């Protein structure tokens, strides 16, 4: 998951949790607050009442001859009763919720009960406040609180989103331009990603330094191979000429000539390796032009002409099932020829007697795909990742006269032309090399 997605998700979830907590807690809180407010109020009223009774006497509230006096507000939301408490020793001073039947309405009240003595008589005072009126005030309060919260949360979410977006943009840019957009081992020039976050600055400069190091190492390797193979050409040339001149001498006996011939063979092997390495380095240094236009079927016919004796040697069938009008443009003919030659040569080398090689084409998403399928010995799964490595030889190919540069040539020619290679193989059944030519080289 991307860092930005993670942060956004965390952001949203944490806000949601806050909202849920709030929704759960607010009614309880508000209820408690309003209850304690009401209770305070009731106690204040009680104290006031007692004060009045003290100074003016109780007669105002209990008419003479009566034992009971009650006073309701017109809508019964509040009431006050006072009565003679006839239960001796009864004592009450509390506040609780109770239902009262008032003129056939059952109303729930918050009721303060208080007993007091006056003129040797015991009285019970009750002051009540309807709970419904309490709720009436707390509900809008809750709604307002909730609304304000939602607005605040939305605002912080927006602010968070905006800020994370802004602060993470350089990271996205680094990933996009420095890591995803890069074609290994060809890197563009360094462009600094503008950011005030020092971690990102450090990341950016570190990636750049690593790229530079890799590039320098690559460049050195390429130069080394190029120089080394060039330097080897002249001594090889001298040895080759010496052997050829000696071979022609009449006075050299056949036994020595056979040994000269062996030397020539070995020198030829050295020469092939050097030439191949030089070719690979020349391709990697882009010293070839891509200006040729070629018909694939004609080119494969040329490959066939070069290689027919090897096909015949193993009695292989070679089918080129490609229409004449499949034409490549902006390619290097010499290189593309060598690409196919090496693939077909491998298909021959690792084939079985009486086997077959089939080459087909198909179009897919604007790309041209050339399939080279053989009925050979195949490539085992554990060898597969290494088949394009230089000088890599596998046990099954040991009996072949090769030095492990066939597929590396194929690989560098393909990379040079932006051709992708996919390999499928089943051990003992055969291999399929899929060349995916990009639209830019198809006519």
């Amino acid at each position, binding site marked *: 998951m991307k860092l930005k997605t993670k942060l956004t998700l965390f952001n949203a979830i944490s806000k949601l949790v806050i909202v849920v907590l709030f929704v759960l807690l607010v009614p309880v809180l508000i209820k408690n607050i309003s209850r304690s407010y009401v209770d305070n109020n009731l106690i204040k009223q009680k104290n006031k009442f007692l004060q009045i009774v003290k100074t003016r006497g109780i007669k105002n509230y209990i008419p003479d001859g009566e034992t009971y006096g009650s006073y309701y507000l017109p809508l019964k939301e509040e009431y006050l009763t006072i009565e003679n408490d006839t239960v001796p020793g009864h004592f009450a001073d509390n506040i609780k919720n109770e239902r009262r039947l008032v003129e056939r309405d059952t109303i729930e009240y918050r009721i303060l009960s208080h007993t007091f003595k006056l003129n040797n008589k015991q009285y019970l005072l009750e002051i009540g406040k309807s709970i419904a009126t309490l709720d009436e005030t707390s509900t809008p309060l809750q709604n307002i609180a909730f609304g304000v919260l939602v607005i605040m949360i939305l605002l912080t979410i927006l602010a968070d989103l905006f800020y994370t977006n802004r602060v993470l943009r350089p990271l996205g840019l680094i990933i996009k331009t420095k890591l995803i957009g890069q074609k290994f081992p060809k890197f563009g020039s360094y462009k600094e990603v503008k950011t005030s976050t020092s971690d990102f600055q450090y990341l950016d400069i570190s990636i750049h330094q690593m790229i530079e190091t890799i590039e320098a190492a690559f460049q050195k390797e390429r130069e080394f191979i190029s120089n080394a193979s060039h330097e080897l050409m002249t001594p090889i*040339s001298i040895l080759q000429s010496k052997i050829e*001149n000696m071979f022609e001498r009449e006075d050299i006996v056949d036994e020595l*000539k056979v040994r000269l011939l062996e030397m020539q063979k070995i020198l*030829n092997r050295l020469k092939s390796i050097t030439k191949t390495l030089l070719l690979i380095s020349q391709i990697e240094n882009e010293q070839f032009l891509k200006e040729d236009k070629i018909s694939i079927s004609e080119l494969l016919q040329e490959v066939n002409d070069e290689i027919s004796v090897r096909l015949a*040697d193993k009695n292989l069938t070679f089918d080129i099932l490609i229409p004449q009008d499949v034409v490549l443009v902006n390619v290097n003919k010499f290189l593309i020829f*060598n690409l196919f030659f090496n693939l077909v040569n491998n298909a021959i080398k690792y084939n079985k007697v009486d086997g077959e090689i089939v080459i087909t084409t198909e179009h897919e998403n604007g790309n041209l795909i050339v399939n080279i399928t053989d009925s050979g010995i195949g490539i085992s799964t554990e060898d597969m990742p290494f088949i394009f490595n230089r000088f890599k030889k596998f046990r099954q190919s040991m009996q072949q006269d*090769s030095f492990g540069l066939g597929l590396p040539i194929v690989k560098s020619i393909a990379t040079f032309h932006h051709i992708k290679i996919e390999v499928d193989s089943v051990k003992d059944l055969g291999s399929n090399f899929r060349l995916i030519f990009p639209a830019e080289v198809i006519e």
Partner: protein
Amino acid sequence: MNVLIIEDEEALAHELEIFLTNHNYVTDVCYNGRSASEKIGTSLYDFILIDLGLPDYDGLDLLKEAKKNNPDAACIILTARAEVYDRVRGLDLGADDYLPKPFSLLELQSRMQAIMRRKFGLKQSIVELGDFLINLTDRVITCGDTAVSSITKKEFDLIAYLILHKNRTLTRTQLSEHIWGSVINDDYDSNYIDAHVKNIRKKLNVYAPPDWLETVRGLGYKVKMNT
């Protein structure tokens, strides 16, 4: 035929000298650009072999001088710098051929002969071998009145190369270098030459026995021809 060899590697220059002298050329050797420039200015040659990698001189400048002072000479560039750019420039400046090092002396000789045929306008080069007439210019083989059409391009290349170096044993390595030299692949030894020769014999035998195509046991093949 006078040949000027310009090559700073003395060992290689020496081998070139031996080879060409053996094949009846008259040779002059220069190990540096300055002396080569003098020779080019004072003597006339039929062939000038120029190594591009001289320490004191740009080989391409020598080529220009040669074109000016020795306009009839055929110039062949020999170089270890197999860069495409050099090849194009060399041929643009009027070089007749270009041989990247390492090259086979036989290949050099066959290039020189090809240039000679071009320069002297030899229209037809026909060789008689047993009952066969081999036309190297039109690349046709005939036996009596019938043309041998079954011979492939590669097979003809092989016959032509053997004829060019007649009465000399050519090794499989030399032959495969000639006919597959332009292909870069990872076979370092090719025994496919045997298969080619076998096919050639089979195809020619339909018309007449090709006795002139000899196997030299353990060494290679040769075309035997009376001179």
